[in-house]
């Protein structure tokens, strides 16, 4: 096949390359779809218990794809917290995606168009970042678009199923299912403690502070959402100050 100026490919080669990247992303993200289904199912249960319809819960998942962010928002919306607090909570909890997107931008083909960049920004999650950053550079945006095509339905349908079942199952079953979200969160934060012992201190300090906020007169009037914002910023900053990451370590190694 002929090369045009330098390493410019013909538009036909380009399309074929995009198609193959798309299919590879689609295939690589199949396990993510299943994992997403399980996690978002618990979010759906949680949403239904906080008064969301299946449509509202599904729409939130379709437009966000963030487990911690959505879990916080579900509770804040149920509490009728302010729009501003919800916005701030999402920025704080999801700010790490900024770092992931930055890493992806550096790995991306230089000639990636703005439309493709806007499209792949739809989902930058821990899991999709994880598989796409492992690709041989340069990264084709269509790999990410393929991955999200597979992963997103798992996330959205899991949420909807959870919300529907949360509304129809007997009370003692939904009560038991309501711990699933928290059990998942625990299963996300505890295993890395084995590699980085300071995380045990971080988790203990966070849980203790959260509990103190709930029982201390004056502090307990603060909304759940504002508590999450304040404690997340304060405790993360404190540990970043007293124990910064070793230089070679990146956020991508974390949860």
């Amino acid at each position, binding site marked *: 096949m002929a090369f045009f100026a330098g390493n410019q490919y013909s538009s036909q080669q380009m399309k074929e390359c995009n198609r193959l990247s798309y299919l590879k992303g689609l295939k690589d993200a199949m396990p993510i779809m299943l994992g997403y289904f399980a996690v978002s199912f618990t979010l759906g249960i949680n949403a239904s218990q906080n008064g969301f319809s299946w449509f509202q819960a599904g729409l939130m998942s379709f437009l966000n794809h963030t487990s911690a962010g959505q879990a916080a928002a579900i509770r804040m919306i149920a509490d009728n917290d302010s729009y501003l607090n919800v916005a701030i909570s999402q920025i704080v909890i*999801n700010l*790490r995606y900024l770092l992931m997107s930055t890493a992806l931008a550096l790995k991306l083909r230089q000639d990636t168009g703005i439309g493709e960049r806007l499209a792949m920004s739809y*989902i930058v999650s821990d899991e999709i970042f994880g598989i796409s950053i492992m690709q041989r550079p340069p990264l084709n945006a269509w790999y990410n678009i393929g991955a999200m095509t597979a992963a997103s339905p798992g996330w959205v349908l899991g949420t909807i199923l959870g919300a529907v079942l949360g509304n129809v199952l007997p009370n003692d079953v939904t009560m038991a299912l309501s711990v699933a979200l928290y059990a998942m969160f625990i299963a996300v*934060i505890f295993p890395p403690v*084995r590699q980085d012992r300071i995380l045990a201190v971080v988790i203990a300090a966070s849980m203790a502070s959260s509990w103190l906020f709930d029982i201390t007169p004056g502090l307990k009037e603060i909304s759940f959402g504002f508590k999450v914002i304040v404690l997340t910023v304060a405790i*993360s900053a404190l540990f970043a100050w007293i124990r910064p990451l070793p230089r070679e370590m990146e956020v991508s190694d974390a949860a």
Partner: protein
Amino acid sequence: MRHDTYIYIIIMAAVTYLVRMLPLVVFRKPMTSRFFKSFLYYVPYVSLSVMTFPEILRCTGSPLLGVLALVLSMVLSLVGMSLPLTAGISCTAVFLANLL
């Protein structure tokens, strides 16, 4: 005043999209602040811990069931069990304990 659920959803979607999109489209420089990177490393652990405790003690209506779920999911995940399995077993245990 009761806020509108759909407006909440649109606001959160917009800010989350901006966080993901800006580095890919607008500024494309590597991040160098070690403090900021370290801060972002700790954020998931802190925010998930704060959201989980003491909420887990309340969500079942019985603090004892909450403690059971907390301890069980800690132990199961630390011995290397997968996320869905950890959650599934914890729910089943809570359901059965509630019957007792």
